[in-house]
């Protein structure tokens, strides 16, 4: 047990030297195309990665509310939002009809067995990450309350 704690402590301290980056996982987008998650970030522009599900009310509230600000955020910061659905096979088929009916302008990825979520240390949804132009996670929020978009705007402004 002592060994384990020591190992964890060393790993932890070594790891803290670098920021969290985006792991590479192969996912499909809502139109069936294969996407490498690492290719989405580090392209000189900030990226918001938001984990959600069709059965998660606060997630949908968050992404629906963001649609009001998204155009402005894109103009001002060049940010792109990637909404990663963690719906499993029971509800994954609802993702495309739902996002189209509410007209989300985001890139949608499907993570049915949470490979990407697990690699990103997502415990539960909603969990939203802000990734800077170099691909480092600079802010995250494991919640959504009405008004969190103001916090998001402040964080985007800091980049």
């Amino acid at each position, binding site marked *: 047990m002592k060994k384990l704690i020591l190992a964890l402590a060393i*790993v932890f301290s070594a790891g803290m030297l670098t920021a969290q980056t985006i792991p590479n996982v192969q996912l499909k987008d809502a139109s069936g195309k294969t996407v490498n998650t690492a290719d989405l970030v580090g392209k000189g522009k900030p990226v918001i990665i938001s984990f959600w599900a069709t059965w998660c009310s606060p997630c949908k509230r968050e992404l629906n509310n963001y649609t009001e600000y998204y155009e402005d955020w894109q103009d001002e910061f060049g940010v792109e939002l990637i909404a990663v659905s963690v719906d499993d096979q029971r509800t994954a*088929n609802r993702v495309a009809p739902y996002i189209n009916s509410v*007209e989300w302008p985001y890139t949608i990825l499907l993570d049915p*067995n949470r490979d990407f979520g*697990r690699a990103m240390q997502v415990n539960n949804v909603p969990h939203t990450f802000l990734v800077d132009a170099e691909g480092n996670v600079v802010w995250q929020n494991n919640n959504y309350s*009405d*008004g969190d978009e103001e916090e998001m705007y402040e964080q985007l402004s800091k980049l």
Partner: protein
Amino acid sequence: MKTLRFLITTLMLAPLAVLGQFGGQNSDPGSVTGNVSLIWQSYAEDSLIGAQVPPEQSALNAWANLIYTKGNFSAGVRYEAYQNALLGYPGRFKGQGIAYRFARYRTDQYDVTIGNFYDQLGSGLIFRSYEERYLGVDNAMDGLRVVFRPINGIQLKGIYGRQRLDFDSRLINGEGVVRAADAEVNFNQFKEDWASKKLQVTLGGSFVSRFQTGSQIEKDTLVLEVPENVAAYAGRANIYYGNWNLYAEYVRKINDPNADNDYIYREGEGIFANLSYSKPGFGFNLNGKMVDNMSFRSDRDLLLFDAPINFIPAITKVHTYNLAATLYPYATVIDGETGFNVEVFKKFKRKDLPEGATGFGASMKRFYNAIVGKYGTNVTVNFAAANNIDTTGFSGVEGAVQGYRRNSLGFGDEKFVRDLNVEISRKFSKNFKAKYTFYYLEFNTNTTPVTVDFKGIVYANMHVLELNNRLAKHHSLRTELQTLFTEQDKGDWGTVLFEYSYSPHWFVSVMDQYNFGNEDPDARVHYLFGTIGYINGPHRLAVGYGKRREGIFCVGGVCRAVPASNGFEITFTSSF
């Protein structure tokens, strides 16, 4: 234990080795990410709601994941602790220790994992290993997985190992060995200019086999050999054409006498098909499935949550509001069921109208615009139905061995569920939104035993009104008013919930669930529960106190029964 020592050594040495090179330029020490979750609950007795107190008076579930990544290499562990497990959590979670460990090397072409992993083939009808920690569901694989992509568009996968069954201060795997092979071809990846074609086609095929030593079973006067190797195979197609998408999967399993099917030798079969169409403002989804004797586990003698190799999703929508989600949640009847689900999504938008327009058409448009509002109105209609499969039972020896014959793909005569729900949401102003949902439910509590108070079909109507008010900058209030009316089971229910948020860090919520329509006046109880929460980025702490009804607790469509409780609950989650 050997693997564990190896892993700890690896984990220790990897960053140390890198630290040693720190003098050099461009040295990448790799990164460590992780998360921690804990749930602590105290128990007080309450005879009115049937809340029990375990001898230890409080319970704690906790776990932490740690992943070290350097370039293409990653390795990780999960430590779990149950001191003791929360009431209602499955009995297979005891003690503390390392429950999950892996090492993985992946490039775009190769992906090799040794140790534990989760994976899914196709829709999961033939193979899915996954976790839902908050429910105590975990059938992680323990073994080897190799993924190979020889050229763009082709993916081959091989899986070999055992599944997590139990945890008792150490990981205990199930008896059977699970072996799987899968091939998937995505034609549009073959050529660069095919990637943006209107027609996208992906085909796949899987083979899964379980080995478990077996002996003979006795049935009536018969002595039968059990098959030690049980094979299943599946084929799938996923086709996109413009706004259309068709997904279909067929699975077949050879004879597999097991505890779920009462040890009959009949082959299993399953069909799952989904057709959807969507365009801006509109979506349509039709889903059908038939599963016959498709329970597939890595141990033929186990039941319920234990060691399932495959996953058969329930046909109904996953409901999110408290009463709809926890009183009568539907789960697949594993022996066999036929069902379908149809759903339509529509956004009604304001129509343009020239100023000062007159006439009947113009006044109709004005009327329509007044109803849908400035921001438009979203409507979703969903209907699901499932019955048993259409079969004729055999008798005598044939009955003992083969069980029954299936006559068609259609419905049998026993109703499992009917679920109609209509959701209307409208934004009234920048600061006020409302959503109304109506549900009509027919629910068979014999085949989905979610209650002990009533056996038969529950007929229920539900109404839910959710209001979102933005009070001021950072301040918002969310209100839910819910009712459920039924003549059966525990009678009528009402739920009121207020959630006040001070963005981005704080929330307070109070919920009262009231069984006002219970025939027994003593059982007309209020279940009052309050929560206060603090969120700071990836860290989240919530403290709750109050009474919880016994019922079904679901996360993302998977449910477990939880007993009534009365006391404090503290939950903490964090990731870095």
